[in-house]
């Protein structure tokens, strides 16, 4: 626990490095109210200031946790230590929107919703489904994507340039502001999804896409896994070109809902939606497939998890969808739990969710029944054992402390990760003192 520690940090050096530095308060705690409270919070206003802050942190051997909107800061394991939070929200500028080049360069603390508003002025967007309040740097660092990952990939696929500050305060850039560029190693890929463990992201450049003129959601409900899997595969493999193929099953053994997003011109989308409805119909839904211009109420959006929620990610090859759905059912029945399952089935990702037993939160996608920590851990562990075959895996993205503790006895939050020794070597190179978000990534056996 941090509070008992005597800090070597003197706020004088930090204040000299950065115009806005304050002491950490309870609201800054990472990992809930019982989490780690940072001694200081620095809010750099520029990459240079961020570099100065990290130089001080290096001199004083401070553990540093970068923070954007903070919405995913509670994911994974809480940091083992946090002397200093680098709060990026003062760096919130859209530096350049080159509409003709379909490129935007933004500071890491810029909110995705505000960026979207600027880009929409030119009929463009960053084709990621992320919360409006999320920051660009946070989106990249978390690496997570919503339904349209099916067509556009995740943040790493749209990121074309990055500026980072290393743990020792060195500023480095990679990529650039042209989409096509193979000069040098692509550090953007490395930092995308690195969860603040390699360094501090201060600027990112995205490639943009034109906003579609029209969109349509084609939905259908299926009684069992074989039909739903067939529908998902048909939609995902169709030359009608879906932007997203989502699936939701609010409770194990229950009906499965499939929705396909089509984007394009008004006439094109209308024609494609009719054909897509026909495709879904041939997989024998329980009622005729529907077409709507608006998303169904259960449309999952980006993966979210509030305090107390457990979010389990299952990744797989789409050809194994039916098997995955059955494995989830079996594991849920055996553990006596009732998770809500939803996600980008067409892209090979589903999330099983358990709502917090204490809070009154009811996420839009159906919640999932709260369950005892041991049962949740049993579910995730059993599912991992069934699906661990080198073509996907089971990772607990977010979980409250008691579930994490129960998981630790079952091998941790993630299954086996290929290339782990190389990952450790990379971490050692970028952050030899292990001061950047220490312990952030779940321990891996």
């Amino acid at each position: 626990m941090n509070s008992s520690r005597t800090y070597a940090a003197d706020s004088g050096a930090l204040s000299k490095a950065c115009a806005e530095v304050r002491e950490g308060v309870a609201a800054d705690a990472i990992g809930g109210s019982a989490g780690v409270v940072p001694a200081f919070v620095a809010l750099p206003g520029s990459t240079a200031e961020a570099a100065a802050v990290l130089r001080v942190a290096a001199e004083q051997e401070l553990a540093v946790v970068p923070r954007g909107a903070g919405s995913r800061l509670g994911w994974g394991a809480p940091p083992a230590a946090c002397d200093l939070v680098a709060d990026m929200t003062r760096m919130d500028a859209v530096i350049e929107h080159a509409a003709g080049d379909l490129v935007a360069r933004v500071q890491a603390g810029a909110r995705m919703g505000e960026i979207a508003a600027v880009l929409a002025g030119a009929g463009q967007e960053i084709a990621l489904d992320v919360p409006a309040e999320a920051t660009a740097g946070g989106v990249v660092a978390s690496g997570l994507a919503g339904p349209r990952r099916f067509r556009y990939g995740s943040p790493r696929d749209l990121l074309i340039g990055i500026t980072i500050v290393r743990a020792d305060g060195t500023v480095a850039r990679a990529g650039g502001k042209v989409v096509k560029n193979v000069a040098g190693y692509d550090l953007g890929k490395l930092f995308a999804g690195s969860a603040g463990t390699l360094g501090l992201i201060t600027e990112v450049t995205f490639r943009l896409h034109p906003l579609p003129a029209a969109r349509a959601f084609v939905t259908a409900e299926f009684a069992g896994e074989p039909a739903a899997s067939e529908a998902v595969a048909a939609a995902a493999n169709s030359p009608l070109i879906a932007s997203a193929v989502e699936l939701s099953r609010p409770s194990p053994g229950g009906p499965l809902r499939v929705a396909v997003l089509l984007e394009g011109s008004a006439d094109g989308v209308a024609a494609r939606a009719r054909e897509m409805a026909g495709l879904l119909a041939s997989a024998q839904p329980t009622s005729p497939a529907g077409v709507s211009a608006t998303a169904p109420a259960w449309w999952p959006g980006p993966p979210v998890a509030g305090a107390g929620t457990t979010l389990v990610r299952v990744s797989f090859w789409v050809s194994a969808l039916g098997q995955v759905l059955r494995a989830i059912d079996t594991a849920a029945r055996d553990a006596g739990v009732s998770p809500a399952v939803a996600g980008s089935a067409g892209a090979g990702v589903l999330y099983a969710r358990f709502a917090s037993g204490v809070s009154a939160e009811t996420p839009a996608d159906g919640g999932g029944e709260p369950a005892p920590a041991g049962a949740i851990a049993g579910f995730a562990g059993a599912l991992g054992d069934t699906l661990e075959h080198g073509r996907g895996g089971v990772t607990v993205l977010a979980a409250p402390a008691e579930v994490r503790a129960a998981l630790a006895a079952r091998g941790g939050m993630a299954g086996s990760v290929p290339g782990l020794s190389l990952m450790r070597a990379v971490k050692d190179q970028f952050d030899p003192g292990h001061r950047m978000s220490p312990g952030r990534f779940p321990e891996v056996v």
Partner: protein
Amino acid sequence: MEARMEGVLPMAVTKATALAGRMTQICGAANVLTDPLELRTYECDGLTSHRATPALVVLPGTAGEVAAVVRECAQAGVPFVARGSGTGLSGGAVPHSEGVLIVMSRMRRVLEIDPVARRAIVEPGVTNLSVTEAVRPYGLFYAPDPSSQVVCSVGGNVAENSGGAHCLKHGFTVNHVLGLEIVTPAGELTWLGDGTGVASGYDLLGAFTGSEGTLGIVTKIIVKLTVAPQAVHLVLAAYDSLEAGGRAVSDIIGAGIVPAAIEMMDALSIEAAEAAVHCGYPEGAAAVLLVELDGPAAEVEAELSTVHSLCEKAGAREIRTADDPVQRAGIWAGRKSAFAAVGRLAPAYIVQDGVVPRTALGDVLARIWALSQESGIRVANVFHAGDGNLHPLVLYDDASAAETEAAEVLSGAILDTCIEYGGSITGEHGVGVDKSKYMPKMFSADDLDTMQLVRCAFDPASLCNPGKVFPTPRLCGEVPGPRRGAHPAAAPGAEIF
């Protein structure tokens, strides 16, 4: 520099040739080459201006053999270079004169196709086009399509993060590779990525792709397959100036259309292509624009009419459209033959691969024209207009030292211009040995140092394709480990990353 005198081999070369016996045990006598004449056939890749004869060539047949070969090299401290089909244009596969060249061409199988998941697992030596041919019966294709796709290997594509004309819409190799089995520079087999596209831990798959063979050797590749489009239309528009063609490009992008490809050729390239393949492009045109649209029939038809009218509005003197594969191939033939065709106009040429923001294309082309006029060196322009990737072909007579020098100076000035406009020195050919000297113009010393941290993590001994990409190698020092002594506040044992 070649420094091999008759009968006297430098020590370092002897060290590599001494591995021949072990390599023969691993790969079989037929797959280890030591004969100087045979070794010479591997002295360069597609960029013939950089050459080095390897000390030894091995052709492993399995991932296990590759790992064993690399382990021998690592133990002996002998550098090694992997080579696919040798079509690279930046000298990325130029051998090390004191090292082992590991040729992947025997490993060329398509191991598995999963049409429902849209994945294939292939060996690195398989050619790019044969992946598409293998999956075509399922209505799928492999999207990255470098011009050399008939011969280039997928393993080489991974090393270079290859693009191609259609990456404007479909993305680069890195967007289509979802898993790699690699042999690390220490000789260990490991997987990066599992074919799902969902990363657990760091995205080493993404960092590895495009690292130009400097982080290890690929032995299996899980590629993403793309659904073959319902409709494909190719539009050819001829203009009296490059500017007019450029206007059409801007208008098309401005209309919110993302074509599969937008290519442009200038008068010199058009003329050369016509002479070479009789592609029948409109005579006397100063610029030919090719716009390919693909996708659902319901969308492409509407896009086609928009593109047609935008091309017209920009002042096209002639517009042709083609939707059947044979007609399209006929039109593409001119574009695809351009490099070779232009090459015939002069005894030698340098192909550049600079990128500029698309909106700066007009300015940069004007600058290239001025540079060409100034130096008296002819430049033909063939380029991926949609993504600002220029391929200026600098034509010169290599029999003249003065002209050779002028051509090199001009090439450098073109890259300087690309950097000045916020672009890149390479869009798809890679840095290799050829452009490493330009890296400090595009990146700061700290940028390059930081990139090389990745190198140090993968290859601390710097034996894997050394001397490529970075002008100055970073000393990795001792093999790094975790910090000595735990962080005062770190719970012991809790921390992995």
